[in-house]
């Protein structure tokens, strides 16, 4: 996590640089980011120790939480940063789950199967990307949905996967205590890894490139951005990310069935969480997952009314808080936990700020 530190440099450029430029500095991180780094380390440590502190009911809930968090972060990476709005990410959720099933039914431990299935999803993402890479906006979104449907239809024809009936996951430890703890640690590790990858990706040069491509593809090409390969990279990361979520899903459910594994509900949840939390920010999906979970835990007993409330919340936030809850928080308090942007200081008082305060 060393890269979280302030990364400031004086613009001591080539000799031809005029004095004004020599005095400015480009800064990566601001103070709130440093604090956030410390907090992240602390939180992860506490979370890792959790099975020794709380009963498995809690850790079991957190497994669902982290699984959703991973998915939402991946969708956010795809839609919020790369501008690729997909309603078919459940394709990879399902493939991840069935990947684990395939390996486990050949004797691999399901936990060891998680990374393999994840990698397999990234590999399967390649042909999918080939198919969808030329498509934009609505075409892309719907085609992804169709691809998920194709995956479901094909998987449900395979008898050894239980066909349309579904099947249980073999090879898990029999001791429920150990099982929940292991599942929890696996999920936590994957979540930390996934968020870490997203963060580092966005902090790297790729992050800028992604936003540029999202904002204007032609413009991006003209400044030398390799649009196709950047988008492919992100697509594959998101494929792997949703794959790992699917792998964790089958391990925690111990049961898989095609309609559930490839359900468009996964994408609906990802979209809901991301947009509620704040799309295009790393913090957004985290906040969104928390909100989603709180709503679910407190209201789900009200049945249809819960869903009606959920729908209304989605509409209200989409309309009145465009940048999501995190947007509200960040605007209100001017904080940014994960600094991925760049800052020029001193930028001089820009003329256009006149009258603004």
């Amino acid at each position, binding site marked *: 996590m060393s890269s979280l530190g302030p990364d400031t440099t004086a613009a001591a450029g080539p000799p031809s640089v005029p004095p004004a430029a020599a005095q400015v500095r480009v800064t990566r991180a601001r103070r709130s980011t440093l604090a956030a780094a410390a907090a992240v380390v602390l939180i992860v440590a506490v979370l890792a120790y959790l099975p020794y502190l709380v009963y498995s009911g809690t850790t079991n809930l957190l497994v669902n939480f982290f699984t959703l968090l991973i998915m939402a972060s991946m969708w956010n990476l795809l839609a919020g940063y790369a501008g690729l709005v997909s309603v078919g990410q459940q394709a990879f959720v399902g493939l991840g789950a069935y990947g684990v099933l395939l390996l486990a039914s050949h004797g691999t431990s399901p936990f060891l199967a998680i990374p393999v299935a994840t990698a397999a999803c990234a590999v399967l993402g390649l042909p999918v990307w080939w198919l969808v890479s030329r498509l934009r906006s609505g075409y892309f979104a719907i085609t992804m949905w169709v691809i998920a449907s194709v995956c479901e239809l094909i998987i449900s024809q395979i008898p050894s996967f239980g066909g349309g009936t579904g099947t249980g996951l073999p090879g898990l430890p029999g001791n429920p205590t150990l099982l929940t703890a292991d599942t929890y640690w696996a999920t936590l590790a994957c979540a930390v890894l996934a968020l870490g990858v997203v963060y580092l990706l966005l902090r790297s040069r790729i992050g800028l490139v992604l936003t540029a491509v999202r904002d204007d593809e032609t413009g991006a090409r003209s400044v030398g951005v390799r649009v196709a390969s950047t988008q492919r990279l992100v697509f594959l990361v998101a494929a792997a990310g949703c794959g790992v979520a699917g792998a964790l899903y089958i391990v925690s459910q111990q049961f898989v069935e095609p309609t559930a594994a490839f359900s468009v509900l996964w994408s609906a949840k990802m979209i809901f969480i991301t947009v509620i939390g704040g799309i295009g920010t790393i913090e957004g999906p985290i906040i969104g997952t928390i909100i989603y979970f709180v709503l679910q835990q407190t209201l789900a007993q009200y049945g249809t009314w819960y869903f009606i409330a959920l729908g209304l919340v989605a509409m209200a936030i989409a309309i009145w808080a465009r940048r999501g809850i995190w947007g509200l928080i960040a605007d209100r308090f001017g904080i940014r936990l994960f600094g991925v942007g760049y800052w020029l200081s001193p930028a001089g008082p820009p003329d256009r700020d006149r009258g603004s*305060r």
Partner: protein
Amino acid sequence: MTQRNESAPVLDVRDLTVHHGQLRALHGVSLSLPAGGVHAIIGANGAGKSTLMRTIAGLHRPTAGSVLLDGADVTALRPERRVAAGIALVPEARRLFASLTLEENLLVGQTSARPGPWTLDEVYALFGWMRERRSQRAAQLSGGEQQAVAIGRALVANPRVLLLDELSLGLAPVVVRQIYDLLPRLVDSGLSVLLVEQDVSQALRVASYAHCLLEGRITLAGHPAELTTQQIEAAYFGVGVSA
């Protein structure tokens, strides 16, 4: 056309203040445009010229002040109603309907048209190349061609006040000349023109009156002949010129 008292302004802008979020883009701007007048608004990059034009057209809601057309307060009217009342804007960056053909763009401009001399045929006659390209989609026109269509689209609404934002931007000299040569005739037909132009000399040549905008305030106004270059430059750049 009804006879009007020449001294009564056709467009009256009173104490207009406009905010973009927190940023105040206009501070109590007032101006009045007489019937048949051509007023130029000049000012540096970011001075608020476009904001003024867009506010008159109804695209921004002022925080204070009012816009009067023929003495009637139109501040509360929506943009499309202002078109019907007689205000037409040729916006910065043209804003054509990209997927519509050239002709369709003009037809859309007629939606709330008032009765008047400008028809599609007249616009085609004005821009000779247009008629044979009329079924080409606007997205495929060159920048200058688009500017011409944008002007045509505003003209067919037969406005009383024509707002031209960055009129000559991107136009070949031949077209610029053509359009500026046209201005007096537009005015003769009863139109009043409010013009934003970066090319100060060009603007001052055609304008009967000039307003200089600096950081959201009018810092200088007068007949072009009475303004000195020094005055204009001072008003133009104020103190805060970026190095």
